[in-house]
């Protein structure tokens, strides 16, 4: 019993002490901040920051080579703590933004100009005449954006149209970069009224290509508060810094404007009423 205790304790002592000495002797300069930051990071080594591991990111942040909010998993709370360690301010906390596909033209309403036979991917499809849609601005519906969204926030509706689910969307903007048509925009999550069209074609042409295209009739511009909706080359564009009443949607003769979320119910009735009046 005694031998056991002595032997094992000696072994442990030797190991611990030896290592402690070795750690001194072979000490390599360390950035204490890096260690502190590493504590804060989730330690999942998931690679979301595109670095080999949490330790590496910690080192970079400590050296000022990476942003304090570079870890998407740790999110804001981690960024705040890291900011404290680094003695910096973390602004963050801006209004949450979500992606929105500015097109409403699924195959049921939008015309095609040819039979596309090729890779099922939007970025590939644009290589041949910019895609098979008659409207050259519209969504190709091959789901490249849905493919890059890590959060499954984009649904492809039947008839080929991408739709973002704002509840699942984390605002990472991967889809914005992926869409070859450039029709995905980041919009404040709180805004409910959207004009789902990107076509700068003149009214007649746009109407020919798509039954729900913006024809640039200006009705919504007039109905909305001054400057909230503007005309950009035959396309009505929402300025999201404005709050726009849901009734404006009913003005659109092409049914291009939609109202989402809680406000949807509110919009339905006035719309019906307006229709009745006219």
């Amino acid at each position, binding site marked *: 019993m005694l031998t*056991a205790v002595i032997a094992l304790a000696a072994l442990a002592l030797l190991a611990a002490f030896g290592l402690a000495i070795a750690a001194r002797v072979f000490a390599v300069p360390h950035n204490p901040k890096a260690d502190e930051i590493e504590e804060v990071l989730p330690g999942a080594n998931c690679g979301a920051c595109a670095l080999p591991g949490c330790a590496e990111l910690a080192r970079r942040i400590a050296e000022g080579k990476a942003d304090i909010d570079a870890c998407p998993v740790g999110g804001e709370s981690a960024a705040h703590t890291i900011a404290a360690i680094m003695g910096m301010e973390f602004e963050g906390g801006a209004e949450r933004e979500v992606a929105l596909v500015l097109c409403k033209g699924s195959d049921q309403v939008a015309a095609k100009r040819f039979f596309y036979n090729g890779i099922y991917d939007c970025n590939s499809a644009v290589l041949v005449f910019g895609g098979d849609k008659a409207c050259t601005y519209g969504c190709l519906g091959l789901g490249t954006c849905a493919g890059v969204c890590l959060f499954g926030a984009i649904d492809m509706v039947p008839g080929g149209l991408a739709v973002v689910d704002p509840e699942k969307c984390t605002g990472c903007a991967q889809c914005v970069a992926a869409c070859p048509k450039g029709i995905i925009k980041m919009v404040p999550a709180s805004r409910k009224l959207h004009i789902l069209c990107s076509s700068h074609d003149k009214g007649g042409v746009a109407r020919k290509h798509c039954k729900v295209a913006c024809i640039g009739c200006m009705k919504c511009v007039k109905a909305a508060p001054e400057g909230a909706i503007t005309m950009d080359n035959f396309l009505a564009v929402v300025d999201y810094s404005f709050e726009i009443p849901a009734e404006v949607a009913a003005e659109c003769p092409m049914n291009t404007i939609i109202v989402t979320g809680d406000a949807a119910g509110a919009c339905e009735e006035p719309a019906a009423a307006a229709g009745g009046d006219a």
Partner: protein
Amino acid sequence: MKEIIRLCFVLTLITAVSAGVLAYVNQQTAEPIARALLEEKMSAVRSVLPPYDNEPDKDMITIMIEGGDSIEVYRGRKDGTVTGAAFAIVASDGYSGDIEFMIGVDGEGVMQGLMVLKHLETPGLGAKIESEDFRGQYSGKSLENTELWEVTRDGGTFIPITGATISSRAITKTSAKGLKLFREHKAEIFEEGEVQE
């Protein structure tokens, strides 16, 4: 430095406690383990010996064989006279490795039983040497009453396991060797010594 000493101390303490606990447990289990190990062997011994009324585990002699190796032989007695012996032999020409098994022999050199102790044969094939069907064939066979200690394939009497002739052959041949060994040392086994206390 102070910090380091503290850490080392904590760790040493924990290890010491651990060592103490283990030493205690070891003390407590040493005997059951020894018993279990012995029991493992003895159950084989018992199953291959002819009827006996002694405690074979206490009646063991060691015989020397050529090459300087020794074999432990357990003796079964009835009313004080040796009726048979059990000993372990190793077949080195098994299919995937050595096969260690225990055989029991009576005074006439007739095999009373065979028990496989350790082997590495293929499951489902060679591993069937453990089966009663196969082992049973050897009971009652002796060098005298059996012409050829070979498997049927080689003209003998023992039916090999299908697809595992090699394992069967190894057992058969080594058993014969064991019986020969027994014959050579019969005198030693049966005559020498009384019950060892």
